[in-house]
């Protein structure tokens, strides 16, 4: 009955490799997000998708490419991994987001990526 799930939970890889992280939500939400938490625990949004359409791209390098096959899934593919990509990546979801107040966001368990 997990609401927002991510796989894998841990990912250790070498510089230059390509990797993907998958996210699924069973809350019936229309909007999904990727956030990055760095080594100092600072959390920042990377991308947001509404019903498979990209609506937020926070100046993330082109090596990061999100893909949303349907509104319940949002995957993150990272090409040519660099040491600085090491972080915890959180997926989140919410209802469609143009209301006032905006809807609550729910977060997945996170994927800890370590690039060596």
């Amino acid at each position, binding site marked *: 009955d997990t609401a927002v799930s991510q796989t894998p939970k841990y990912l250790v890889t070498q510089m230059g490799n390509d990797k993907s992280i998958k996210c699924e939500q069973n809350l019936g939400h229309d909007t999904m997000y990727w956030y990055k938490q760095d080594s100092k625990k600072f959390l920042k949004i990377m991308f947001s998708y509404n019903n498979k359409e990209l609506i937020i791209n926070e100046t993330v390098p082109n090596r990061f490419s999100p893909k949303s096959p349907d509104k319940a899934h949002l995957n993150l593919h990272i090409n040519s991994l660099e040491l600085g990509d090491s972080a915890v990546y959180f997926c989140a979801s919410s209802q469609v987001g143009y209301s*006032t107040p905006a809807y609550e966001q729910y977060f997945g368990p996170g994927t800890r990526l370590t690039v060596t």
Partner: protein
Amino acid sequence: GIQVEQSPPDLILQEGANSTLRCNFSDSVNNLQWFHQNPWGQLINLFYIPSGTKQNGRLSATTVATERYSLLYISSSQTTDSGVYFCAAQPILTGGGNKLTFGTGTQLKVEL
């Protein structure tokens, strides 16, 4: 963009003590959430509180939207309350998507 500041950055409590964590934000908000990141790294939703007051067990939160701050109260703290508490806010913007901006967190340690 919106600035979200939390205080104090670090807090050590004896079990059973009460505490108040503060979150100041620079713009009018459409969403304000409090999270607890436990020692295993999981982000747990505590409160969705763009305005008003809510209570959940030993925790309660108040957001005074007109004065741009929110408070999280922890009463009778327990060791399981340890971790990082984040406040996150979304400004009222027209045409923009939902985007939570997080504060830098309050690291809480509750000791026996």
